[in-house]
């Protein structure tokens, strides 16, 4: 990983990957969602609303995966002082918050016809809402550190690590507590080939997750390039101002 500690080397790779990730992600996501909306079969119990699965579940995984990335990047920043780790964590925060919010919104829309309620205060929904609030707090902390000139953002990194405690709580909430939310459909059973989910839904779900993940990767690279470009422009302007002051 330290091979890409050099921003110039990282930028070469990021320029190469950003557009292909976005284009591949957009094409795959569009194709799967079109199939999900028009061709996927209705399900016996859930009826037509099962089609929401292809957006809701990838959004949940990316919301949780985003915070896992923030925690890993924060660890790398605090322990190994990797120069790009803090930038990566900041770049993940907004798309992670977006997918956590999308998961909550689509879950609420799905909940109305399935449970007869837009919202219930059960473990899964509440812990996911807490994750969204954690993202908002992280974004505010990282922005405050950037504005105050403390570019390293150690407080945001510590917050990123501590907030990771919510990820296993979200995952196990449907097992630990009574919940309207269904238990995990995927997991060890999928690896052994005995998934309770029918093949068309499982394949569609995996494809939509891959499509949204490619988009997520492209967006994170674009946001890292934005942060690096802004930092480089500001450093140049500061240097120029100091040269003018000295002259």
């Amino acid at each position: 990983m330290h091979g890409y500690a050099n921003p110039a080397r990282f930028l070469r790779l990021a320029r190469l990957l950003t557009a292909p990730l976005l284009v591949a992600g957009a094409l795959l996501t569009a194709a799967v969602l079109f199939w999900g909306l028009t061709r996927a079969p209705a399900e016996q119990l859930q009826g037509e609303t099962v089609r929401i699965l292809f957006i809701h579940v990838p959004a949940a995984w990316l919301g949780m995966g985003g915070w896992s990335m923030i925690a890993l990047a924060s660890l790398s920043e605090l322990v190994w002082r990797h120069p790009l780790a803090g930038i990566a964590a900041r770049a993940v925060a907004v798309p992670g918050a977006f997918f956590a919010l999308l998961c909550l919104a689509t879950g609420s829309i799905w909940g109305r016809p399935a449970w007869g309620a837009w919202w219930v205060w059960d473990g899964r929904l509440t812990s996911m809402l807490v994750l969204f609030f954690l993202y908002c707090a992280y974004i505010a902390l990282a922005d405050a550190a950037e504005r105050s000139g403390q570019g390293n953002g150690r407080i945001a990194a510590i917050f990123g690590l501590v907030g990771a405690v919510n990820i296993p709580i979200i995952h196990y909430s449907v097992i630990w507590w009574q919940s309207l939310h269904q238990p995990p459909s995927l997991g060890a059973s999928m690896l052994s080939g005995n998934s309770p989910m029918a093949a068309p839904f499982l394949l569609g779900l995996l494809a939509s997750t891959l499509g949204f993940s490619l988009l997520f990767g492209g967006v994170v690279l674009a946001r890292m390039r934005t942060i690096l470009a802004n930092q480089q422009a500001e450093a140049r302007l500061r240097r120029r101002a100091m040269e003018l002051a000295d002259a």
Partner: protein
Amino acid sequence: MHENLNQLAYVYAAYALGVGGTLALVLQSVAAMRRAEARRERSREQ
């Protein structure tokens, strides 16, 4: 399913949020990247 709800209306609402929101996120991120990289090039030329 105890109520007579139009299930597809909920599906369309979820898809509109998902597609519209994701599109907005991608476009905003790419536009911000282009603006920032153009600003860096301008600062290099000054």
